[in-house]
């Protein structure tokens, strides 16, 4: 009995001594990511989409051994605050995340929120990923710790407008958009790319979101006979309503919806008027097997119909994992420095980080964007083209 006892004790002592040095998730440290996103109010579906995408990614990463840094292994843990898509709330949430929760990685939803929290982020050297538009106001050389996970209109136009111009022999274009900051930036971006391609801008028109009747504005735009119209930041029900009313006015040119559109809303509001309309970033089928898998896991976990908005955020967790592992450190500055070297096969295909030629800093997630059209006869979306950004972008 005594003979058996001694080797057992010895084995236990040896195991307890060495186990912490093994890459075992049981002994992994926590890597906390702060989620600063709207979970109430009108933007809640977007915020919830981001949170769930991060939950799925964290679950997957943790199940496959976590994030490995040298001999250590990190388990992803999320701390979430509702920023209500409000700049003041977003700043309060980031303060709590930095000073109470001691978080070094934060993901923020919302243009105004990202812009508002950026000074705190930079000052505290927090690695920050914004699910936001906001152009150079949100990401620029003065915000070196902030990255953007979604493609902006400027990238959508750069990737897809050359194809449209070529395929539909477009020489003139009219621009319309909302008269808020998002809309003006969207139109500005379209104008930059259109001019670069040698297109003539026949006219521009802006109106408030929720405009009841677009007909007077569209009458003015169509009177100048543009071969194409870009509908800028018109989204929600505004986009399809403008589409329907343009077609009712007899417009037969190319209609480009470069902003995120809800296809079910489009099908309801502009039923019978969608044939040939072009959409940026809308997928006719699942963009990749990874995307299909993400959708399946989402429906299994949340018992809800998958919302494609989730796809946009699935890659964030994997990009962070790759960057931390490449840096060999969880220090945000080290991770920030390697971000431009990171590439993953993500939901939308090969995802990398670039944008220096436009933002002055490599801060932008870049991936192929689809151009989809609606086939009125088959009553379904058909992908025409998938465009990416040049390697030196």
């Amino acid at each position: 009995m005594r003979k058996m006892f001694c080797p057992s004790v010895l084995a236990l002592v040896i195991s307890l001594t060495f186990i912490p040095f093994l890459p075992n998730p049981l002994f992994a440290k926590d890597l906390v990511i702060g989620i600063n996103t709207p979970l109430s109010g009108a933007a809640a579906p977007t915020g919830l989409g981001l949170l769930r995408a991060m939950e799925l990614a964290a679950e997957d990463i943790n199940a496959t051994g976590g994030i490995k840094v040298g001999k250590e292994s990190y388990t992803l843990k999320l701390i979430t605050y509702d920023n209500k898509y409000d700049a003041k709330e977003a700043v309060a949430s980031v303060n709590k995340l930095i000073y109470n929760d001691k978080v070094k990685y934060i993901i923020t939803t919302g243009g105004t929120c990202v812009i508002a929290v950026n000074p705190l982020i930079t000052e505290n050297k927090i690695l920050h990923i914004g699910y936001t538009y906001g152009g150079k106001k949100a990401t620029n050389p003065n915000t070196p710790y902030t990255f953007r996970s979604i493609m902006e209109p400027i990238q959508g136009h750069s990737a897809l407008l050359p194809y449209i111009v070529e395929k539909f022999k477009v020489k003139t274009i009219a621009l319309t958009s909302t008269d808020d900051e998002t809309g003006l930036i969207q139109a500005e971006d379209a104008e930059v790319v259109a001019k670069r391609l040698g297109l003539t801008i026949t006219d521009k028109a802006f109106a408030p979101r929720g405009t009841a009747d677009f007909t007077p504005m569209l009458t003015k735009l169509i009177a100048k006979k543009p071969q194409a119209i870009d509908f800028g930041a018109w989204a929600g029900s505004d986009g399809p309503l403008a589409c329907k009313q343009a077609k009712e006015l007899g417009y037969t040119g190319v209609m480009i919806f470069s902003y995120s559109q809800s296809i079910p809303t489009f099908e309801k509001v502009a039923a019978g008027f969608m044939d040939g309309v072009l959409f940026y970033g809308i997928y006719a089928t699942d963009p990749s097997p990874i995307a299909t898998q993400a959708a399946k896991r989402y429906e299994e976990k949340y018992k809800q119909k998958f919302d494609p908005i989730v796809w946009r955020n699935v890659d964030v967790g994997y990009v962070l994992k790759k960057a931390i592992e490449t840096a060999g450190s969880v220090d945000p500055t080290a991770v920030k420095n390697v971000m431009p070297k990171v590439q993953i096969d993500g939901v939308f295909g090969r995802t990398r980080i670039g944008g220096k030629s436009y933002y002055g800093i490599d801060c932008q997630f870049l991936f192929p964007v689809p151009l989809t059209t609606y086939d009125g006869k088959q009553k379904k979306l058909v992908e025409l083209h998938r465009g990416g950004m040049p390697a030196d972008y």
Partner: protein
Amino acid sequence: MDTVPFYIQVFTNGVVLSCYYILVAVGLNLIMGIMHIVNFAQGTVYMLSAMLLYILCEELGLNYFFSGALAIAGTAGLGILMERFLFRRLLGQFLPSLVMSLGLLLAIEGAVWLRFGIISKAVTSPFRGLFKFWGASISYERVVVIVGGLLLIAGLFIFIRHTKAGKAIRAVEQDREAAILHGIEITKICRLVFIVSFALSAAAAFLVSPMLVIDPNIGHTPLLKGLVIIVLGGMGSVTGTLVGGFIIGFIESIAGSFFDPTIASIFSFVILVGILLVRPSGLLPYRM
């Protein structure tokens, strides 16, 4: 677009916008003229009837015209309830009625938001299709708004000017005490005014919904335009509402087609200020 079709288009847009605004504004103005209260929830009434139309048509699958009739009847019924239980006791009290109707607006919109969410709805249009008129494209939906709107406005005029009930409404509007002395029951007239006013807003929703979208905020534009039209045309004046409505509708169409929608709105307010400087009581005050 060539010159003639362009002007036809601008004219059509002007008439459509005018009819849309007038139908909501005239109800608002009738209540103001008779009861001396302001119902800020009038735009919300328009939104509620559009939502009711959506439920009946899209969720219950009823015929559009039958749904429209039910929505108009239901909204008129709501008018009776609101008049009896909320507004009757505020007769002639401008400020309390303003606060009450603002509260109603917020409460109803909040409730609708909870039930339907923020995502816009649309009813399946029974008036699909277009026709060409001198090169201009005009949808049947717009023709329905124009014809329906003009018929309703004409009907309202006949009702106000040539029926006993209409004459009673005018009498109350002109001199409440004299009307009472002549045996006119004010409560009945108030109820009638609420019924007509709510039914007109519901009729506007019936005509316009196939052309536009439905969400909890759709009442804001007609309410705001309605108030501008009333100030422009003259408080309590149905004729003034008609004139003011056509002025605002055509300004929006013309300025929007030549300049910008934002400039169109600025134009409306500049003209409003200009007219008020010359005629502070509006263009046609005291003309029922």
